[in-house]
């Protein structure tokens, strides 16, 4: 009898309750399938994605500090100058391909930078999800600290702002060390169009 009433009540709760991120993950595991290089492992949230989903991108300050520190540890900073070839950086910034199920694995990925940021003022087709980076190096100089910050931010944006909408381009394996250096060059080299 007890069991019977439990069975009666059970369907009411999942129907009326708001699904948690874990519930949503289960639905996605059932309803999505791997395609090309996009495997089902991508559905499984890591701790950061879970916290940002749970808090609608407004994590409590103390938790955010802790998790940002964890993300900082993932960044492998290279030795020496971090300023690469800005011309290559511009091509990477323009390229919006990579990591999609339609993109061939093994080919160089783009950074999709112009999708969200203004960079070179010559490019009029730029997005506005992120801040404008036009004149970035001209305003801040290109000393070791600025280089390190820019490299780190591109490698793992979540180390600086936990629920940033910017992908962790180095951490996720999207961009190589050299590609990130070239993007640092695009932002900081005085010869780069970004700084003109």
């Amino acid at each position, binding site marked *: 009898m007890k069991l019977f009433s439990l069975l009666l009540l059970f369907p009411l709760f*999942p*129907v*009326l*309750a*708001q*699904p*948690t*991120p874990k*519930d*949503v*993950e289960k*639905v*996605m595991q*059932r*309803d*999505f*399938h*791997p*395609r090309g290089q*996009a*495997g*089902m492992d*991508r*559905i*499984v*949230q890591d701790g*950061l*994605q879970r916290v*940002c*989903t749970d808090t*609608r*991108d407004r994590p409590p300050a103390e938790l955010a500090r802790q998790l940002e520190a964890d993300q900082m540890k993932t960044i492998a900073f290279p030795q020496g100058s971090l300023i690469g070839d800005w011309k290559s950086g511009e091509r990477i910034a323009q390229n919006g391909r990579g*990591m*999609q*199920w*339609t993109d061939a694995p093994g080919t160089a990925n783009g950074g999709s930078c*112009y*999708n*969200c940021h203004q960079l070179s*003022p010559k490019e*009029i*087709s*730029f*997005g*506005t*999800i992120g801040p404008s980076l036009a004149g970035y190096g001209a305003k801040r100089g290109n000393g070791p600290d600025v280089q390190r910050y820019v490299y780190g931010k591109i490698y793992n944006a*979540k180390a600086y702002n936990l629920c940033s*909408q910017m*992908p*962790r381009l180095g951490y*996720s*394996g*999207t961009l190589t060390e050299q590609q990130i250096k070239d993007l640092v060059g695009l932002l900081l080299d005085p010869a780069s169009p970004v700084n003109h």
Partner: protein
Amino acid sequence: MSRAFARILVCLAFCAPAAAQDVKKEIERYRQMVNDGSPAELFELEGEALWKKPQGPKQVSLEKCDLGLGPGVLKGAYAALPRYFKDADRVMDLETRLLHCMVNLQGRSREEATKRVFGNADRPSEMESLSAYVAAQSRGMKMAPGESHPKEKAAYELGKALYFQRAGSWDFACTSCHGEEGRRIRLQELPVLLNPANARSVAASWPAYRISTSGFVTMQWRMNNCYQQMRMPEPAFGSDATVALIQFITVTGKGEVYRGPGNKR
């Protein structure tokens, strides 16, 4: 018509930064001109032929397909979708229901019927043309998706939760791009679908002819293509997840008079 389009292309290539606003105006002007005689009509005609064409092992047409208002009733059917269907015991959007009829009425296998649901400029898909034909029969009617059945409510809640779910290689949720008003990817403006005003214009205009790719696009395609760009694996066509998102957007945008299938950028 093509001259205006050429002007846009020339402008996109050469106009000074200050002219970005002019480009947008040109695109809007072009869109209005094309709307007077939208290519979507061609898809509607093709869809009508497919609706009436006997197909599958049972060699029957879709004319007895029940889209929610009774077998074969087309007028206003799209405006009342998505909705709960008792015979399938789940919420279905237009495309999911069409697939249901292909399987149950025409006796086709799910695999065969979903082999090529998204077409291209050279060859539109059967699903796209059928969507154009059915949606057109709701022109001038208010969008009123089902929202009283517990499963309709659950689909809305699931769709809303999916909208905020961050995952994948790039940590994206729908909100990553469609979360703040006034943001763009490149020059493309991004509607925040939590805002009823934005959801209303989406509900009232999809499915649609897409000028930039010369193809007809549906809501199932829109969900699929967004997840591709979000670097996620692929959602199954007509799955509960995709239907839930469409339910969430349509319920948020309910009440708007349907004016599609029209044109997109």
